[in-house]
């Protein structure tokens, strides 16, 4: 990584894990994550000439987010039919895990997949990519206040998706709502 600007291979080797993880949490399955990463790497390669050293992971997150949102828009314009047995497209939860230890993370991933894309992107960039709000705002092209709102609403929806309200069994609540 001479001169402060990494090569394409440096990015793939040193930040590929970050890129793939963010892509997977956005897309929800391996196939789409792999496609997102490969397209992102093509854009990264083209963009390296103009990259200014700074928050590299913020820049990478912006690119993979843009690829994801472009793909979401493309698929909304042009719905496709999945072959039997194939995972559903971008909005799908992760495939079933074969290890019990992954059950909880699969549940969280499935809950993430239920979020509207804008909220999912904000939550993933904040809580998976660990970017500050300012970088999330730069990656998504919205003001910091909008980022905060999306993260907050996304978290509330996610919490609801993880634990749907149980029917009132004994009438006892926490007494704090309302």
């Amino acid at each position, binding site marked *: 990584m001479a001169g402060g600007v990494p090569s*394409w*291979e440096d990015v*793939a*080797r040193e930040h*590929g*894990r970050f890129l*793939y*993880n963010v892509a*997977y*949490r956005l897309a929800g399955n*391996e*196939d789409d*994550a*792999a*496609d997102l*990463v*490969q*397209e992102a*790497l*093509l854009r990264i*390669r083209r963009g390296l000439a103009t990259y200014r050293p700074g928050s590299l992971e913020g820049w990478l997150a912006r690119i993979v987010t843009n690829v994801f949102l472009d793909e979401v828009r493309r698929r909304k314009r042009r719905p*496709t*039919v*999945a*072959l039997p047995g*194939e995972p559903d*497209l971008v909005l799908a939860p992760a495939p079933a895990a074969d290890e019990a230890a*992954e059950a909880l*993370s699969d549940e*969280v*991933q499935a*809950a*993430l997949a239920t979020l509207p894309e804008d909220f999912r992107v904000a*939550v*993933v960039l*904040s*809580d*998976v990519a660990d970017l*500050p*709000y300012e970088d999330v705002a730069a990656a998504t092209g919205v003001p*910091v206040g909008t980022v*905060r*709102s999306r*993260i*907050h*609403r*996304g*978290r*509330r929806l*996610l*919490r609801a998706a*993880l634990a749907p309200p149980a029917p009132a069994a004994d009438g006892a609540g*926490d*007494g*704090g*709502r*309302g």
Partner: protein
Amino acid sequence: MSGPPVPEDGLSGYLDGELTPAERAEVEDRLETSPEWRAILAEVTEARAAVRGLPVREAPSGFWDAVLSRGAEERPVERSRRWQVLAPIAATAAAAAVLVAVLLPGRETVTPAVPALVDAHAAEASVAADPISRLAPIGVPVGLGR
């Protein structure tokens, strides 16, 4: 304290350390007096912890080797599911072929070459109308663990 009151989403900003000192103090005051805000804070704290607790998802075995070995070639990557685009076209062609076979009068036996019709139609449609499928002849799928 000046300015408008901190809205509810300030609770996430509070968790993430994204508030100014004045906003933080305001949120803490509100938390002392509002059970509703405390309940919402508990919700978003759980959600945040759940996502942050997700393990790093690794790419399938061989993925990075394949990506790096392709690095010298700048070409669009084949989408892994072009059949999802072709499937409706093929299904339409097959349905049309069956319909023709059933409705044609005066034929005692009809044996439509459905597979050939489907292949021909799909191939033509993919070349003429679908920019992704046009890549199929040159695309080499990277091992995606399908």
